[in-house]
């Protein structure tokens, strides 16, 4: 243990603890900006400088390990003067049109300015000297360099968490900026639109592209029937933007709020998550049969899940040779969109041209996905607008809804029923667990052999998870699988996805089925989720997801009554011709830079 003094108070901390964290032990807050719990130390904003007795310069508390006998002052005159200067300097290169900014009152620089800078500006406004570019090319987010303070959180996110490096630091000195390959628009580089950078940007330099006003327009258009679907991970995170602690489930209140906002049908992406299990599970079993029994060499195994649009774009850019390994299933959002303008329209007897399909997603990549040319199989744009969890919270506030005191209500029908298997889609390993619950039962006629249906080996926050399920006691149709060991793997965060994809590409992986989610923790850690998102908070959201699952009466996708009904009434059977028309697709190869 290391013994040091901070503001004349003694504290003992384990070796390797930073001064910043040692101060936290004493309840002393040191302001930070470039620091983020998910990322490596940068030490470049210098907002956290503190005074060390005897040192020539101030030190960055986030980057300095505590050492024996150290004496630190976090609020000396020297520190305050420097910190004030640093905040003023950041403000001088930041376009401070706060009242018009999407991040107004949610901006970390604004919070610091509140504390350290008031009255007249000390320094000259540098933003007048530079011609900044605002990049609106991505349907998912906006990159506004005039708001950028070069903390490089986004760069570290893109390289360390996602191993995409669509953005990097370019140029030096006053010309330094965060840029893409050859300064191309973000829509024309390897960016997966995952939004992890957006989630970590302390200012308004990276924000989601918002469609709130278009959704309000649709809601107020009496000619339109506005359908809204909510993704599994939204219900365990929305509360954070509305005053709840991380990990509180607000499903029922969210449904009520959506109804009060004026959506005509409030439905659940969980329904198509269950449907995805039927389609994807069947696809997997069919591929296995073709490969193992028929000896079809054309069949690509292992099969990757295809729910995560960030992952889809990643594989298109980086591993186009593996595109055939992707399940042909669309994501639950897009299945829902296609069905909202076909099946739902039929059932409810609404002209599909009058349906506006909105989805609430924990994700920014979903905005991109909804815009893809592949996603128009209903004859219309399957999903019209995608809002993030954060945008929904904004709408709730705009409407003046007293969220905390709302009654809890249930989703509308049809396409509002769900099972626990669908809910857990929101956490890494969830799609795999849901698929195994159903596939095992299809093949053996018995429940998957795990206590309470909880398949523990596929759960948790390890970057890459592996499991083997031995198939025994198969029914007659599936006896070619008797005794087989189904090998599965799960990865979340593209840095981990890359590990598995590389192993598969090099022929070093012996899996049959692989679940991949682009974001750390899966959708609960999505780029569209409330800010901040970090390991602790992801953990809490994950616990909420699994408790939601345990509390539902139905926990296997194939038991969802609406899923059974849609096969009887509309799709006939999984992977049917109709299914393929509406619920499946293929993706394309893209450049690798």
């Amino acid at each position, binding site marked *: 243990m290391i013994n040091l003094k901070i503001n004349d108070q003694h504290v003992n901390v384990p070796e390797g603890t930073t001064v910043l964290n040692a101060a936290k032990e004493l309840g002393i807050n040191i302001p930070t900006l470039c620091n983020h719990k998910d990322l490596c*130390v940068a*030490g*470049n*904003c*210098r*907002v956290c*400088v503190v005074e060390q007795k005897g040192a*020539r*310069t*101030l030190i*960055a508390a986030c*980057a*300095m*390990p505590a050492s024996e006998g150290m004496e630190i002052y976090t609020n000396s005159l*020297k520190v305050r*003067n*420097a910190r004030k*200067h*640093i905040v003023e*300097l*950041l403000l*001088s*290169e930041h376009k401070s049109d706060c009242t018009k900014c999407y991040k107004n009152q949610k901006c970390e620089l604004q919070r610091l300015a509140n504390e350290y800078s008031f009255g007249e500006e*000390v*320094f*000259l406004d*540098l933003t007048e*000297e530079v011609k900044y570019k605002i990049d609106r090319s991505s349907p998912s987010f906006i990159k506004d360099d005039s708001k950028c*303070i*070069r903390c*490089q959180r986004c760069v570290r996110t893109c390289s360390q968490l996602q191993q995409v490096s669509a953005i*990097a*630091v370019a*140029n*030096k*000195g*006053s*010309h*330094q900026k965060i840029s893409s390959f050859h300064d191309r628009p973000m829509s024309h580089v390897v960016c997966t639109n995952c939004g992890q950078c957006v989630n970590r940007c302390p200012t308004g330099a990276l924000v989601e592209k918002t469609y709130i006003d278009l959704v309000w327009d649709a809601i107020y258009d009496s000619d339109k029937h506005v359908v809204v679907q909510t993704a599994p991970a939204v219900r365990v995170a929305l509360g954070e933007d509305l005053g709840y602690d991380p990990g509180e489930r607000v499903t029922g209140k969210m449904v009520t709020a959506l109804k009060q906002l004026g959506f005509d049908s409030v439905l659940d992406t969980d329904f198509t998550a269950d449907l995805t299990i039927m389609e994807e599970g069947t696809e997997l079993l069919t591929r296995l049969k073709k490969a193992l029994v028929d000896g079809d060499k054309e069949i690509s195994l292992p099969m990757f899940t295809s729910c995560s649009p960030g992952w889809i774009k990643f594989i298109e850019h980086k591993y186009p040779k593996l595109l055939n390994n992707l399940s042909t299933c669309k994501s639950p959002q897009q299945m829902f969109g296609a069905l909202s303008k076909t099946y739902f329209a039929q059932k409810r007897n609404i002209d599909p041209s009058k349906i506006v399909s909105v989805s609430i997603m924990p994700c920014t990549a979903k905005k991109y996905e909804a815009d893809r040319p592949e996603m128009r199989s209903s004859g219309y744009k399957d999903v019209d607008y995608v809002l993030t969890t954060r945008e929904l919270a904004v709408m709730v506030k705009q409407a003046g809804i007293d969220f905390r005191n709302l009654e809890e209500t249930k989703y509308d029908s049809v396409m509002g029923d769900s099972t626990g298997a669908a809910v857990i889609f929101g956490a890494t390993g969830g799609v795999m667990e849901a698929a195994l619950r159903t596939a095992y039962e299809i093949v053996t006629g018995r429940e998957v052999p795990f206590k309470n249906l909880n398949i523990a080996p596929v759960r948790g926050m390890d970057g890459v998870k592996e499991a083997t399920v031995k198939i025994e006691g198969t029914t007659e149709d599936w006896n070619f699988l008797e005794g087989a060991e189904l090998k599965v793997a799960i990865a979340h965060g593209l840095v981990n996805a890359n590990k598995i994809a590389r192993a598969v590409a090099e022929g070093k992986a012996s899996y049959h089925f692989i679940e991949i989610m682009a974001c750390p923790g899966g959708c609960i850690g999505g780029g569209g989720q409330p800010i901040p998102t970090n390991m602790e908070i992801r953990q809490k959201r994950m616990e909420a997801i699994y408790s939601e699952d345990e509390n539902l009466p139905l926990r296997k996708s194939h038991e969802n009554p609406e899923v059974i009904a849609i096969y009887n009434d509309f799709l006939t059977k999984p992977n049917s011709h109709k299914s393929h028309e509406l619920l499946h697709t293929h993706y394309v190869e893209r450049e690798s830079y």
Partner: protein
Amino acid sequence: MENRGLIKVDLIFETIDSGKVLSKAFRMSNDEIIKEILDSGLRGRGGAGFPTGMKWKFTAAEKDQEKYIVCNADEGEPGTFKDREILDRVAYKVFGGMAIAGKAIGSKKGYVYLRGEYRFLLPQLYTELDKFHKLIKEIGYDFSIEFRMGSGAYICGEESALFESIEGFRGEPRNKPPYPTTCGVFNKPTSINNVETLVTAMMIIEKSAAEYVKLGTQDSRGSKVFSISGDTPTPGIFELELGMTVGEFVAEFGDGDTKAVQVGGASGFCVPRKKFDETIIGFEGVPTGGSMKLFNSSRSMYNVLHNYLDFFTEESCGQCTPCRVGCQQLLLGIEKVKKGEMKSVYLNELVKLADTMKVASKCGLGQSVGNAFKSIVENFREEIIY
């Protein structure tokens, strides 16, 4: 030790028998080499002046099997051109110094990080390096050297940015600690020394520390090579004993009308005429990596300062706030004061900013911008305003 005035010496460029000196060094133990360098009082010749013996001692104490010697030949300080001359004329002594340092710290591998603009030296340097590798082999010692090229960024002369650059990354300074002696290039213990430091170390092994300490002062032992430019009838490279005053220097190299000397390049200090006689060139006064630029009364100190700030605004890596934004503010600030768009008292605000940059910047670049700024603004305030 008394100041003996300006004395020219010729040690750095003196021809020596490399094989003999290296054989002698390789017969010495690691501790003996380090002790000799410590006793000589040699301090880094790049400008920062860290005791070379200490650096070697710390690196030698690391347990790691893999260690590196890096020769910092990214000579980028404005007004410095002595390393180019050394590499041009006595490269074998640079390589010899690296081998001796390697022996001292337990490293078998050295890198020379050569300034991009010095690429023209490469063919002859490779010829010299081949000779050196042959010589080392004959002596029966295991040590090899590779070149790595810079690409023109001033910041890559900063040791940790230089490591990043060698490793193939963007040249940006790292957080310290850990220091290079524990975690340097490729995250291995590394001793990084200036070109001249390595040559001087070899000379000390040849002549002994006892001989070397006869030159210089208590704080600034020995001699060093100066790059002299500006308003002088005799610009060029001169090796001088340390300890002279700026006044003595100006008497030798000035044109009779010298009003200021910039000691240590853009990151150094500006010494005005009234302080010439009281200012010693060395670690007890104004330290320098060798750059000495003389200005006569025809020069506008505003232009001089503007030029330095322009340089820093361009050459800051841009990573940390005080340096990236601070440089721009200083530059724009003096422009606005000159134009009368800001009141002259704004200079006081800028001086405070320079102080913040000195204590809050991440690396030596941002920390030293204030040196030139403050010494020029404080001594030539009128020229900045009017």
